[in-house]
Structure formats: C-alpha cells, structure tokens
C-alpha cells in the first residue's frame, strides 16, 4: 500500500503551472495527507490567492498523480484557515525562484498594511543582486507578483509579493 510518506515524496514533482520551478511543497500549500484505505486518499490544500486559477490546475495534477498510484477515490479538499502566507515557502523554493529570475518574497512585514505611500520594501534584484530597485506596479503578471525594475542593471523583474 502506498503510504503517506510516499505521497509527500510524490508531491515534490507536482509544480505550480505559473511558476514551474516551484513544487507544491516549496509553495507550502499542502497541509494534510490522509490515506484512508488502499483505494481512498484525502489531500488538504490551501490556496495562495483567493482567485488564483493555478489552484484548479494543481488540484487536477494531484488527482492525476494519485490515480496513477492506484487510488480510485481521490479527494482534494481546500481549507482557507489559517490563511496561507509566503512565510511558508521553503528556503530551497526561494532559491529556485531567484535562479528563475523572480525575486523571492521578503518576510512578512510592514508592506502588508493598508497605508498609502508608506516606505517601500527593499527588494533585491534577482539578476545582479542590487537592492537599488524600484516598484513599477504593486500588481504583476499573476496574482502573486509585483513588478519591479533594477536601477543598476536596468532589468525589469517580478517580485513574489509578501502575503
């Protein structure tokens, strides 16, 4: 019988469709794995952003992977609380993001307040390592990213925003 440890291992190879260097374990969205019998398994995941369309694809990938392992009843349950935070992203996930050209999230801090025009975070350019960067837009190509530009190497880049 496939045990829970095997399933966790399996999840190392299920990737976020929008940021394909991150596994769902790197993202920290898998909360629980319950093998109920030879046929039946329940997986509990938590969404990153409420409307993130990647969640449906991830749910489907989990289902497919487990069907291949011989399970016939696969339940993928979403829970909202405690709400996902970028602090749950693994250290190796952050390194992979950076190598992929996306600045990894800083630790949750001041930026998560509603105050207008407050001091900006120091975001490091993933290309040249400079902290001399500027916010272009608080919202980027996907729900989880903001758009920055490096003032030194001039490259624009995505920043995985703290959540």
């Amino acid at each position, binding site marked *: 019988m496939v045990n829970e440890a095997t399933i966790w291992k399996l999840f190392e190879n299920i990737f976020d469709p929008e940021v394909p260097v991150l596994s769902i374990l790197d993202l920290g969205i898998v909360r629980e794995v319950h093998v109920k019998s030879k046929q039946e398994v329940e997986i509990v995941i938590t969404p990153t952003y409420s409307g993130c369309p990647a969640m449906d694809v991830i749910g489907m990938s989990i289902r497919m992977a487990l069907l291949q392992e011989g399970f016939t009843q696969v339940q993928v349950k979403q829970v909202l*609380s405690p709400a*996902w935070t970028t602090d749950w992203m693994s250290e190796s996930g952050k390194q992979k993001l950076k190598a992929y050209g996306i600045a990894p999230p800083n630790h949750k801090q001041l930026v998560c307040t*509603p*105050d*207008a025009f407050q001091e900006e975070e120091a975001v490091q350019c993933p290309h040249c390592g400079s902290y001399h960067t500027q916010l272009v837009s608080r*919202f980027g190509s996907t729900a989880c990213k903001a758009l920055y530009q490096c003032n030194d190497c001039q490259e624009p880049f995505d920043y995985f925003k703290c959540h």
Partner: protein
Amino acid sequence: MHDPLLHYCLFLADSALILGHRNSEWCGHGPVLEQDIALTNIALDLIGQARNLYQYAASIQGGDATEDTLAYLRDERAYKNCLLVELPNGHWGQTVLRQFFFSTYQYYLFQQLINSTDVQLAAIAEKSLKEVTYHVRWSSEWVIRLGDGTEESKQKMEEAVDNLWSYTGELFVPAAYETPGFGVDLNVVQMQWQQKVAAILDEATLALSQQGWMQKGGKEGAHTEHLGYILAEMQSLQRTYPGARW
C-alpha cells in the same frame, strides 16, 4: 427569511462578484498597461472571494446548488449586492474612488468578521483580508494622486465624489438578514470607514460630500437599472446553453 447566514453570504458574494465584473470591463482599456493589470488583478481577487463565499452559500442551501448556479442562475431581484458596486465605471478616477470606498468598507468589515463565531465566514474573511489590504493601498494612492493632481484630475475626482457618495450609506444600514451580525458591529465599521475616507480625501485635497440623503435597496434586491445589463452579459452563456462547461 429562512436563513440569515445564507442571505448574508450571498450579499457578500454578490457584492464581490459584481465589482469584480465591473473592474474586468477595464481589461485591455486601462490608462497604462501596469494599471490595467493592477485593476484586473483586483477583479480576480474579488471573483476569487466571491467563489469562496458562493461555495459556502451552496453548502448551506444544499440540494443542487453550486457556486455556478448561484452566480449564473439567479435573477436580479435575488441579487443582494450593494448598489455602489453595480454603478457604471465612469472614468478611471470614478472607478478607483469606488474601489477605495468599497475596499475600505471590506477591510474594516473583514477585520471584525475574522472573529466571527461562524468558522467558515471567519476563514474567508481571514483569507480575503490579505488581498483587500493591497486593494485599499492601491486605490487610496490613486485617489490622492488624482485629487491632488492637475486641475482637470481634481475636478473629475470632485465629480466622482458627488456621483458616488449617496451610494455609500447603504453599506452601514443592516439588512434584515444582517441583524444577527455574525460578529460584526456595523457602527464600528462605519466609524472606521469615515475616519479613513476623511483622511484620504483630505490628503487628496478633496472635500467630503455634504449630501446627507442616501440611496438604499441593493442589499434587499431592489437595484438600479444597471444590474440587469451586467447579469444579461454575465449570465448569457449559461442561460443560452444550460449546463455548458469549459
């Protein structure tokens, strides 16, 4: 009124969905690419919040109800969204001001709702609050930028305040299904909302509106003429091809 919780979920869900839909009308039409993307992101967050709320509402209603039947197969009178969110977008300034009014309301509402005795409502509020925090920041920065901008942008923002103000009162008058409160004291939300709005408008060099008379009815299903058009567009596919799937 059989189930206040169901109606309350629908009110929250409908308000998020309709504003998400309105914002999505800007997709491809924003003043600059980055802000087009920003508003579309906000639309996505709102539609995501609406999905969580509709899923919960469907589980309360039971039977064949799903998030899709609730969004696509209810008529105008069954929709409980506040009137503010169904108003036409107007110009960019009016769209960001509407977002600011609504996001500020959601921000203080959800801050209380995370302590609700209803565990699922609390979870949805906790999740949504993170995104709403970004919405408040983004929209208030725009209100300040445009209000304290050029002569023309200021005048357009003054118009927007006049156009939208009478639709803000409804947010703080509890509908019949809202009276259990679910852990929210609307008087407190109103006080916090007024303080924040006054502070941002002041920084934007815009005057608070002197209008005292307020519109109402949306939360009880009596809408402006605009909602029907939104639903006609949003629901047309499911109404024409019932049960169609991607």
